[in-house]
């Protein structure tokens, strides 16, 4: 049996006035296992600590209960004390007789009786505590970033600058994400490409960064510090080292498809470069639309390519990479206008989404930056912007606020005004969300200087009459029904998680919120990481976000990763779950219960706990129908013993223990 010492603190008068410490000392003197008991004025003070050390040495104690204040205050202090005396720190228990006893009760008799029980529960727990040491495993000092938008680019650069190797996996032929499509950005109206392309170039040249474009992560195995990722790369068929970017291939390709970069407002060929500043700067064949490489089907591009950069024999490749941490920066897409029944299911060419309008505003866009509408190339004189399109609509669309569309709608109106001086922009809104540095000022300025008219009310319907888009809305401030015969309508479509990302998330066994955005470990205190250790989140993949927020989160996540990478080994609290192999029936219930994916069935069909992943919540233990699963230092036996001791008086008066179960 353990040799336990009990130390009861007076905390000056804080405990002593309400709890009879002398009586307690007497009552517990002969409790099984207690070989030493004493009380003192300030246990946490230097003399107090020395008294504990002396008692440990004198009585050869191997377990200590301190009856004092809450463990949040001094648990680690006393753990250090006993560790100094060569006792494992998990052989310490704190009985909280101040915050949860002397301070909350008046009656001394009652408080003393309760303190007695509190100390006894600590003793019962301590009796079965094991000595534990932190779980550790080695650290692979490489990082994978998935998604090459501004968030992924920023995170990759920060980590690479910190000296660690980074793999950036981007599913499209070029990095850049949505930011590269934008014209000018709020609240400063600087040109998006001007600020992003230097970063892209820097990234491409960085010695610590390895770029996988046209690639997707198929699978990740392992755990923090020790992941193995399987990356599939689609061939581009054009050798970037040979290709001179002459463009002869394009001229000969017979296939024309809508350009993704221009959001379908212009055309590209089946062999193409996504946009002039693409990184890597090279041509790609889009096999989904290409007629076929063999000369019978087509093969025109290869014939045209004088430097012979095109090689049709390239095959998809799979790479296995070892990494220690993963950053998810998969970004967003816009909610399809095709789902907006009220706005015509996307069938009107002059009803655009925000990104399409960005392309029309952009100097590199389909109109070369001229404000022309798609249907007939006329200059729109009356333009309507509709906010919250598909957002804040739990009944039919997305319940959340997309956070950035208030700002970009206003930006659109302002940029429009800069191009069409005699035009009139209207913005239909429900509320304006402009929380951000200099955002509100940006809005106020546009209203007063650019004559943007805000109309508070949601548009019920848009229909086409002659060459006008008829917009029916309501100004709820005046109660007047509004009709605008618009030349162009721009919908501030809801941001949604990027297409196909749900499959990736499933493969990585990560969790999302009800809308498909990646879940952070804690909404306030751990917004940069997933609860799955080793996974970090940035940018719009975690929730609607603008560029400043995406960059801030990316650098934040990078800092977290750098802190992780700076460790040789990773350590982890050992208060975790374990499985009694004899009892486990292999039912697998615990596996689906674990929020961290820390459990799996082994070859013998028995549940196993990955000690590095387990956070010790205990959900699996209470879910196990065979009581096979247990928590270190909080086993079912320990809990039941604590219950028994709390209810001891009752038991003595009523039933024998043995009859019970």
């Amino acid at each position, binding site marked *: 049996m353990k040799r336990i010492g009990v130390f009861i603190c007076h905390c000056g008068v804080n405990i002593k006035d309400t709890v009879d410490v002398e009586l307690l000392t007497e009552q517990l003197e002969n409790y099984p296992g207690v070989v030493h008991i004493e009380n003192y004025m300030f246990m946490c003070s230097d003399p107090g600590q020395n008294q504990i050390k002396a008692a440990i040495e004198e009585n050869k104690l191997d377990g200590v209960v301190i009856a004092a204040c809450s463990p949040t205050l001094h648990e680690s202090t006393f753990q250090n004390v006993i560790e100094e005396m060569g006792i494992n720190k998990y052989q310490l228990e704190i009985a909280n007789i101040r915050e949860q006893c002397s301070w909350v009760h008046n009656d001394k008799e009652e408080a003393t009786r309760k303190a007695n029980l509190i100390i006894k529960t600590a003793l019962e727990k301590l009796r079965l505590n094991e000595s534990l040491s932190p779980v550790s495993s080695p650290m692979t000092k490489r990082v994978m970033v998935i998604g090459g938008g501004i968030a992924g680019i920023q995170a990759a650069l920060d980590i690479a600058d910190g000296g660690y190797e980074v793999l950036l996996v981007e599913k499209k032929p070029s990095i850049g994400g949505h930011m590269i499509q934008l014209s000018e950005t709020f609240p400063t109206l600087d040109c998006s490409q001007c600020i992003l392309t230097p970063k892209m170039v820097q990234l491409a040249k960085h010695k610590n960064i390895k770029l996988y474009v046209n690639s997707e992560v198929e699978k990740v195995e392992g755990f923090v510090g020790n992941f193995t990722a399987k990356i599939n790369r689609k061939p581009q068929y054009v050798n970037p080292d040979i290709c001179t970017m002459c463009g002869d291939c394009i001229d000969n390709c017979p296939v024309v498809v809508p350009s993704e970069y221009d959001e379908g407002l212009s055309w590209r060929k089946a062999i193409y470069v996504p946009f002039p500043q693409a990184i890597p700067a090279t041509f790609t064949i889009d096999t989904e639309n290409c007629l076929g490489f063999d000369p019978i089907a087509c093969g025109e591009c290869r014939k045209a390519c004088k430097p012979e950069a095109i090689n049709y024999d390239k095959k998809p490749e799979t790479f296995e990479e070892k990494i220690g941490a993963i950053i998810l920066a998969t970004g967003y897409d816009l909610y399809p206008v095709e789902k907006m029944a009220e706005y015509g299911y996307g069938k009107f060419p002059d009803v655009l989404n925000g990104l399409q309008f960005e392309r029309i505003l952009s100097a590199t866009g389909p109109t070369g930056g001229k404000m022309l509408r798609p249907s007939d190339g006329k200059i729109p004189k009356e333009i309507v912007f509709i906010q919250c399109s598909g957002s804040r609509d739990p009944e039919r669309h997305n319940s959340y606020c997309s956070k950035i569309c208030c700002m970009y709608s206003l930006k659109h109106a302002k940029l429009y005004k800069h191009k069409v001086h005699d035009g009139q922009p209207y913005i239909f809104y429900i509320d304006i969300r402009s929380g951000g540095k200099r955002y509100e000022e940006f809005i106020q300025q546009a209203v007063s200087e650019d004559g943007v008219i805000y109309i508070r*009310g949601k548009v*019920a*319907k848009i229909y086409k009459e002659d060459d006008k888009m008829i917009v*029916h809305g309501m100004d709820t401030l005046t*109660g007047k029904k509004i009709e605008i015969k618009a030349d162009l309508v721009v919908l501030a479509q809801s941001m949604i998680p990027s297409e196909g990302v749900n499959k990736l998330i499933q493969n990585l066994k990560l969790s999302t919120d009800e809308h498909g955005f990646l879940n952070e470990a804690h909404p306030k205190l751990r917004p940069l990481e997933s609860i799955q250790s080793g996974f970090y989140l940035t940018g719009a993949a975690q929730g609607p976000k603008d560029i400043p927020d995406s960059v801030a989160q990316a650098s934040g996540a990078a800092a977290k990763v750098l802190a992780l990478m700076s460790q040789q080994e990773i350590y982890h609290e050992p208060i975790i779950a374990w499985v009694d192999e004899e009892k486990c029936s292999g039912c697998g219930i615990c596996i689906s219960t674990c929020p961290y994916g820390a459990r799996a069935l082994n070859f013998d069909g028995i549940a196993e706990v990955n000690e590095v992943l387990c956070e010790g919540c205990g959900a699996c233990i209470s879910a196990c129908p065979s009581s096979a699963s247990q928590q270190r230092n909080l086993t079912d036996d320990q809990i039941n013993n604590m219950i028994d001791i709390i209810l001891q008086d009752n038991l003595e008066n009523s039933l024998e223990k043995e009859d019970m179960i």
Partner: protein
Amino acid sequence: MFYKLNNKAIKNSLSEQVQEISAQNVFDCYQCGNCSSGCPVVDYMDISPNQVMRLAQFGAIQEILDSETIWICSTCLQCSSRCPKGIDVSKVMEAFRAINLRKRFSKVEPNKTQIQNIKETPPILLVSAMRKMTG
């Protein structure tokens, strides 16, 4: 003049009755105005549908009961089909009519309608109008 709001005014029994008859929670409304935007007869109303919802949140039920709006509403269900919060606004309108009608109030006297030629008038028109407007 101030519109006086207080706890008691907001939580009154008429307001509860509206929610009970309509089975709609008027506090779900966030005043987007979509119901009014799409309402085909809002021009004839003295209070627009979103204002009806707002006044109902204030508990100002009598004001709505006395309005023309509830009688102008033609139960076209456009508001209900488009409300982003899934409120069946048309049921709320019906609840106000019902409270009036259950007090034996009639908006029209059957002999004082705007019908000139009764033979030409289809039963569907007579019956539906009577059901919506007479107590």
